[in-house]
């Protein structure tokens, strides 16, 4: 009965996703971007899709608007199956996607031209919209003459020109400086709350937790490998929301805990050797950044709230999460309830000298199945040198298109620990001589 209900929507939802899955490629190299996503958006809602990079949130946005087809599952818009680009939806892009050779005015007009609006009407409407977003006086300017904030205003004006019912925003503020982003958020919220645009719902993709809590009525938290929905958090705070508010901060902390998760038992974190089908991805973090993070947490007394950490380090969530993961994998720290806490080993590492750090790392890094597998494969080779292509080939079975990145990370870590290194001229990995002599 319940399944029947979801298939025949009651018509209330503006948008409904049913078990939407999207993958690229086929066979062994098939890469799963998002899997089994269910989502509903009602008219009048402002929803944020939030998650770390690689969680497929941007892919999901493109599937929702019909830019990319679904691989499995379906999307209903007002109860109708979406096939092809949804004419009632539009996107505001992270990089603005303005045509550099068109003026501000032309950039807005071209969206109307595509819909066959006559010239005079086009001009009038573009003028009105540019007034509304505060770009009057800049009609004749080219995008390259504008600041990032103004370019994005033009992006908003262009999107609103086609009077979309569903306005999709793909990290619209993340390419802007802090102040411009803040100003533009306020303006967007004002347009939305005052109902001066005919938009029925907004769906925004972001990796900025504060931004999501500041703007949205609902925050949909996504996880990665492959992308899936972890939680759906309603935000009931009244506008205007205050960042310093305790309720606000509590909510940010809660979402942080959801995004960062909780350090899993060692067997799960480490995974198994490549080829077993249970290999775990090495987080894309360099040893230098890992050391920086451990030192920072150590300075804070060995424990720190993650959201404070991103604020203090002026880093985005996307930058911090892989480093935190690396710390977990090494056994330097654990994460729970949105807090990061150094282990005894982590504290020792933070206080150690450069030489001592190398020794600690050498021991820790060899525990990682992927690195151990590379190390042992090299040891077995007569010349202790093997072409990188061999490893990439093998890693591809587990990591698909990320095989190359995985190898790069493995080499970075192993180099620091003086286990093995990479010879750029020959494209080979080789065992570090001193280490093998030991």
């Amino acid at each position, binding site marked *: 009965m319940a399944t029947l209900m979801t298939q025949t929507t009651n018509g209330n939802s503006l948008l409904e996703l049913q078990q939407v899955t999207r993958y690229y490629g086929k066979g062994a190299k098939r890469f799963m971007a998002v899997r089994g996503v269910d989502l509903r958006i009602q008219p009048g809602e402002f929803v944020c899709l939030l998650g770390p990079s690689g969680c497929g949130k941007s892919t999901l946005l493109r599937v929702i608007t019909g830019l990319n087809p679904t691989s499995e599952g379906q999307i209903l818009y007002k109860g109708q199956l979406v096939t092809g680009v949804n004419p009632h939806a539009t996107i505001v892009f992270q990089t603005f996607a303005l045509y550099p050779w068109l003026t501000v005015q032309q950039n807005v007009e*071209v969206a109307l031209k595509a819909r066959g609006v006559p010239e005079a009407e086009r001009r009038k409407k573009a003028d009105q919209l540019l007034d509304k977003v505060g770009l009057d006086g800049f009609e004749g300017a080219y995008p390259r003459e504008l600041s990032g904030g103004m370019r994005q205003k033009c992006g908003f004006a262009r999107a609103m020109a086609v009077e979309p019912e569903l306005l999709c925003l793909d990290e619209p503020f993340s390419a802007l400086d802090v102040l411009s982003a803040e100003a533009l958020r306020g303006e967007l919220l004002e347009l939305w709350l005052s109902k001066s645009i005919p938009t029925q719902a907004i769906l925004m993709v972001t990796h900025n937790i504060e931004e999501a809590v500041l703007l949205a009525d609902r925050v949909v938290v996504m996880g990665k490998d492959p992308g899936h929905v972890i939680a759906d958090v309603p935000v009931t705070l009244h506008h205007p929301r205050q960042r310093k508010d305790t309720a606000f901060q509590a909510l940010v902390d809660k979402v942080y805990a959801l995004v960062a998760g909780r350090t899993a038992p060692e067997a799960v974190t480490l995974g198994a050797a490549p080829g077993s089908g249970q290999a775990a991805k090495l987080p894309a973090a360099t040893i230098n950044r890992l050391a920086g993070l451990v030192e920072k947490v150590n300075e804070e007394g060995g424990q720190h709230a993650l959201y404070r950490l991103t604020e203090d380090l002026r880093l985005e969530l996307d930058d911090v999460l892989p480093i935190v993961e690396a710390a977990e994998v090494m056994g330097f720290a654990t994460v729970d309830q949105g807090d990061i806490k150094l282990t005894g080993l982590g504290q020792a590492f933070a206080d150690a000298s450069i030489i001592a750090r190398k020794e600690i790392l050498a021991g820790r890094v060899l525990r990682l199945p992927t690195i151990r597998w590379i190390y042992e494969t090299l040891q077995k080779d007569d010349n202790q040198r093997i072409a990188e292509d061999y490893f990439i080939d093998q890693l591809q079975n587990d990591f698909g298109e990320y095989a190359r990145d995985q190898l790069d990370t493995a080499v970075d870590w192993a180099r620091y620990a003086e286990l093995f290194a990479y010879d750029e001229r020959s494209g080979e990995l080789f065992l570090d001589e001193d280490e093998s002599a030991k």
Partner: protein
Amino acid sequence: MRRRFERAFNLSLPAFGIGDVVIALLLIALLYLGTRLAINAPQSVTGPDISLAPTALPWYAFLSTGRMAIAYLLSLLFTLVYGYAAARNRTARLFMLPLLDVLQSVPILSFLPIVLLSLTAILPQRFATELAAVILIVTSQAWNMTYSFYQSMTTIPTELREASSIFRFNPWLRFKTLELPFAAIGLIWNSMMSWAGGWFFLMASEIFTVGDRDFRLPGLGSYLQTAANQNNIPAILMGLGTLIVVIVLLDQLVWRPILVYADKYKVEMASGETAPESWFYDLLSHSVVAQTFSRRVWQPLTEKIDRALGRLFKASTPEQTGVIAEGRPSIAGIVIGLVLLAGLAYAALQALSLLITLPLSDYGRILQGVLATLLRVVISLAIAVMWTIPVGVLIGSNRRAADVLQPIIQVVASIPATALFPVIVLALISVTGSLNVPAIILMLLGTQWYVLFNVIAGTSAIPQDLRYTTALLQVKGWARWRTLILPALFPYLITGMITAGGGAWNASIVAEYIKFGGETYAATGVGALIAEATARGNFPLLLASTLALILTVVTINRTLWRRLYKIAEDRFKME
């Protein structure tokens, strides 16, 4: 001066593939068909009478420019159609890209004899020679333009593409608003390069004569040749002067303004580099007539065209809006492909049966010729590198030297080498008696500029910080060359030498065999063999030597140059 002077080369392809086999078959088949037609070519062809009167010069200049213009427009048309198809259709791309790769490395001039002979066999002589000239120029211009356009089409930022899909642009609007503007700058630079290169082939085809077959065309090239034949120094000077004036005028009145207009199509959002300037463009854009025309006629017209074409091409389907369509070959496509392949294989077999009629001694001559020409190419490249590195580094690192030398070099370099051939031969043949050495100088003339411009560009691209560091570290003399200048130049040098090498092979056809003052001079070389075979009507020899030349050049490109280019990209790139 940062831009590398390169034709858009496509050296990243895998070494050899199935596409190459088909392409080899295609080339052999085409050459064979040409040769078959050529067997019926008239024994003697009479050329035009060339007047050396100064009053005839404007007419000749007009004829030469007209041929260039027609050929360029055809090249542009080809570029847009072929490039678009290759970018949009995945199956077609499998063959279209390797084909481009071979075509752009084939010495185009080697086709000239076969094209001329086969066309005169089936068409009125005058028309055939005109057509052959245009075909030759197109084959010299189209490939790099096409490749540049294809490259642009496939590197359009995803979000710009997505924006045109989400706003539901029809294919025409997408082409006009996104694809063509994005490709514009690359296309214009390559057009200018192709245009300059086109003069070389135009002059070559205007003066082409073998045995009793006089394929000359009335134009600036034949004017210069006639003047040199008659030892008429004033006429030579006038002819050269006219040629330079035409080239400079076209640059100032056509290419510069287009370049300035296209500056707005730059994609980089920041305004860093200095924008190109053109007095003629400024003049036009401030003229009331031009402005009124633009507002009253041009804008309403484009509006109408947009609407009509928009209706013609309906809004795109979702499959087409993806980054690149993932087409699967249809059954009909496979059948057509197989039939074509069978036809090609048949023609190739026929070509083979023609080739085995050639005596073994002739194959020995071909091998000897290829080696002799190879030696010439190597020597001319070596000379070019030896003088251009010091001069180029001087110009590239010294503002004052650049200010003085740059304009002079640009004018001298703009003279197509083939226009100078008759003049050089006039000067050298009496000294050396044979063409063996002058041919090297003729090759050098056409090729050294590519190397020079690349050395200049490479030198001025060395970051100032690196220069300072080298100075601070007291690295001087030879050590400075070895640690800073030569490694920084390497990618540029390779690019220049690839282009120059291609040019030198091309030049061999016209440089190794020259009819001058009633006498025929031939050097030992494959170019001379091709010309000789054309003169005698020895078709198996013509086919065999043309194929040998093509095979040699393609092999050198695929092995030596590709490897060096990869090393340059991997190890010596600055970014």
